[in-house]
């Protein structure tokens, strides 16, 4: 905890008290001393009070999303026990004033994460000049998030070679879309089912929502291996390209196995959508002994 630019208020306070002392010494009046004591008390509380306020302040996040994309704003809601000026540091964000209150949502605070990553907490720079606004004090606090915030990389330029082969001979079969398969039957709707698969006739017959049940798609999954370099900037660029590649593959309806290295070790697991890919890439780290600048994205069948 430290004061913000304390020199001017401190010098002003000392100067004011010195002048009061001079007046008291020249006038000898008890009232001057009484008034000087009041001014001294106000300056004391005005200059040192914010430190006590900050020391007792509690800040907690009441609502935060689980996913976001680097470079785009994400809003979390926090509550505090007293009025504060809040500036997110890690990840960075916009400065705002948070007030205690009974509103259910809490105070919105906008984060603007610049890089991918997974954040269990946010580091905030909280400041207060309570109760008199004479001197600002600031303090850094780490506030746990209700759920980890996955910051996916930006979507970069796709890096993967086109897997569509030359079809001069007309022998390359068009792979069906993942959500398109060979109908096998109908089953009751479950949350998350594609709405395009609704079977309206069966729904009318059964009296509840029914969806088509398809056989497994015919497409074989592709394996995208992302090797991140050690350099953070370069690593970010590689992750962005990897996301671009994965997004392209998803748009083509390709099943994808993503191979990355996380803090727990190598991970090879399917990813089904951009959100899942973003989360995996957010967690990805450079493998031990990785080259500083050269990363790689390999797409293999």
């Amino acid at each position, binding site marked *: 905890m430290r004061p913000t630019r304390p020199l001017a208020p401190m010098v002003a306070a000392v100067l004011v008290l010195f002048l009061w002392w001079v007046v008291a010494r020249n006038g000898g009046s008890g009232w001057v001393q009484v008034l000087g004591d009041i001014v001294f008390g106000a300056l004391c509380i005005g200059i040192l009070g914010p430190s006590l306020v900050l020391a007792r302040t509690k800040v907690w996040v009441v609502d935060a999303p689980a996913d976001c994309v680097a470079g785009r704003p994400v809003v979390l809601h926090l509550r505090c026990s007293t009025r504060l000026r809040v500036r997110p540091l890690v990840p960075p964000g916009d400065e705002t004033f948070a007030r205690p209150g009974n509103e259910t949502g809490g105070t919105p605070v906008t984060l603007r994460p610049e890089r991918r990553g997974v954040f269990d907490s946010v580091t905030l720079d909280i400041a207060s000049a309570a109760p*008199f606004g004479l001197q600002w004090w600031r303090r850094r606090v780490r506030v746990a998030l209700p759920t980890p915030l996955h910051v996916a990389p930006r979507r970069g330029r796709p890096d993967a070679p086109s897997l569509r082969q030359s079809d001069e001979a007309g022998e390359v079969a068009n792979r069906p879309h993942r959500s398109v398969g060979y109908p096998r039957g109908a089953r009751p709707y479950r949350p998350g089912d594609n709405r395009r698969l609704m079977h309206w006739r069966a729904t009318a017959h059964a009296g509840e929502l029914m969806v088509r049940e398809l056989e497994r798609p015919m497409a074989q999954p592709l394996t995208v291996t992302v090797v991140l370099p050690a350099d953070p900037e370069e690593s970010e660029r590689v992750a962005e390209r990897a996301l671009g590649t994965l997004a392209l593959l998803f748009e083509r309806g390709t099943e994808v196995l993503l191979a990355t290295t996380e803090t727990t070790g190598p991970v090879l697991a399917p990813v089904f959508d951009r959100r899942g890919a973003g989360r995996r890439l957010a967690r990805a780290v450079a493998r031990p002994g990785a080259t500083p600048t050269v990363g790689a994205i390999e797409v293999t069948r």
Partner: protein
Amino acid sequence: MNIVGAVRQANRPGPPEDSIRLRVASGATVFVAIGACASVGELTRAQALGAVALIAVGMAFSYRTRSRPPGWVKVVVAVGAVAASVRFFHEVVTPGAGVTSVEGPLTVLMTEVLVLHSFHVPARRDLMFSIGASSALMAVAGAQAIDLRFGFYVVAWSALGLWALTEMWRAASGGGRASPVGLTAAFLAMATAAGAVFLVLPAPNVAAGAAFLAKEGLGGSIGVPGALAGDSGTPAQLARAGSPAGPSRVGGYLGFADSLNTALRGAFGNTLVMQVRAQRPSYWVGKTFDTWDGQNWTQVQPAHSTRRLNELSPIVLPVADGDIPLGQPDLQTFYIASFTADLVFHAESASELWFPRPNVFFSRDGTIVSPIGLGQGSVYTVESQVPSSSPDQLRTASGGIGLPVSVQQEDLQLPHPYPRVQALAESITARDHDTYDRMQSLISWIGRHTHYSLDIPPLPPGADTVDEFLFGNRIGFCEQISTSLTVMLRSLGVPAREAVGYVPGSYDPITDLYQVHADDAHAWVQVWFPGYGWQDFDPTDSVPSANPAPGSVALHDIAAALRHVPWFPLGGTAVFATLFLLVLWVRRTRPTTWAERVARYAERAGRRAGRRRRPSESLSEYARVLDRLTGNESTRWYPLASRVEENIYGHRECSPDVQRQMIRLAKGIRGSRRSFRHYAPNRAP
């Protein structure tokens, strides 16, 4: 950044301040400060009203133009401030301008600056300057304030200043409502800090000053120049000697006249006569008597034969006969509250005088007489060399500057032999070898063998006061006690004289003034020591030796006040009020519906088990947690919680019997001490 850049940075206009409340609070703070200055006479009523009106207009103008303040306003403010400063310095340094103190012109200067500044306060820091400048005005007013009525201005200014500061914080933090708890805590903390400093700091002794206070009040000219005046009527009425028929002197005291009749005791009032600001308490001596006739004290050299000193302040006073100005300098300012004798009171050995008139009368015993009556509002300042010799020094006092023979004869004069008194004095001081010890033995003997009383009949005509007192019933008042000591000392060959004036009075820690009332009039003894001059001794009482700290006096006053507090009725009232508030609180927090009661029982049971309900938990979710904690089939919160939620959210009313049953069930589960016997905190979900 170079200096020019730094100055530009400092002078960069701040963001416009939109808070009207902050402006109102700042303006009100300034208004109160101006009112305080007017209340102590530093500003005339017209000046104060004009300043308040102009500042109100200026504040409104500043608010309207806060976004784009016109450039010419800043120029006008700067030029006006320079002109006001030039006028101030011209007024202060010009000789013969009649300026007795710098406070008045300074107040006018600061008020002018505030008026000008009010037209250019677009930003928050400009408003802060206004608040700071108002504190300077309050300081100037406080330096002139001499009574507790000024406290109203202090309280109002402090309250408005606090309001302005809290508004400043609100404006800085984006608005919203301030927390009453926080404000109360801040106020209490501020009061504690201020009180602690007040209790710790010593009194603000006057250490330096260009021109000390001297002001003419309600008095009037005295008919006979140099004569003693200030009798009961007006300050200018000549003093008459006391008589059994009409003991009507200043405040009822008979001593401030040409003679002091010790057979009579005046009827004292409790009127506040004057207030004294001094670095240490002293006896404020008015005059001395050297000639004793058995019942009356008189002065060989009458007051009207005194020398007239014609000088501008400060008037340098000649050294009185027998005085040796070797003590510590002490500055005293006397504020006359009602009216008193035309004697210029002072601590012993006055050396300089700041007086509203250039001429005073000075007699060789050190008595100073004013040429005008000293009525309400009169102020004068005296510098004295207060004797600071220690008992050991006085014991070894010998040689040095001697007392002139004629003066010595006057101060050893006795109207007739006092054989019994002399024998008594010699028997009391038989074991003492020096004057100081002899005198202390005599004072000690008087303290042990005599009694003080104001309620005694006048002595019969012709009776000797000392014989009647020492060999009669030994009951008397200060004049008789001090006269007895004087005569005993003179019978032993020690030069001594009677002094009259006032005791220091009660010390007010807030105003730092000694409050001298009419019944503080007193008589004591001055004893001459070779090499040290006249020393005050009071056989009636002792004088405190040091200036009391305001803090200790305040604590003492508080303790004395607490002793008089009627604790029993107050305690009873407090207990009753607490019970009343408790009942109110219980009634207010008591659940009003059966559903609330069930929910309350569940939460209470959870709290007892160490698992509070989270804000995000519904009652049924919480009930599931409680059921998991208990692990006991007989205690099931969930069904109860479901019924409660059905009632609240599904509007399914239960019959009164079912409601009662629910409450009974909930009560039973809550009351089961063994409900959570399986619970361990580390297994909390």
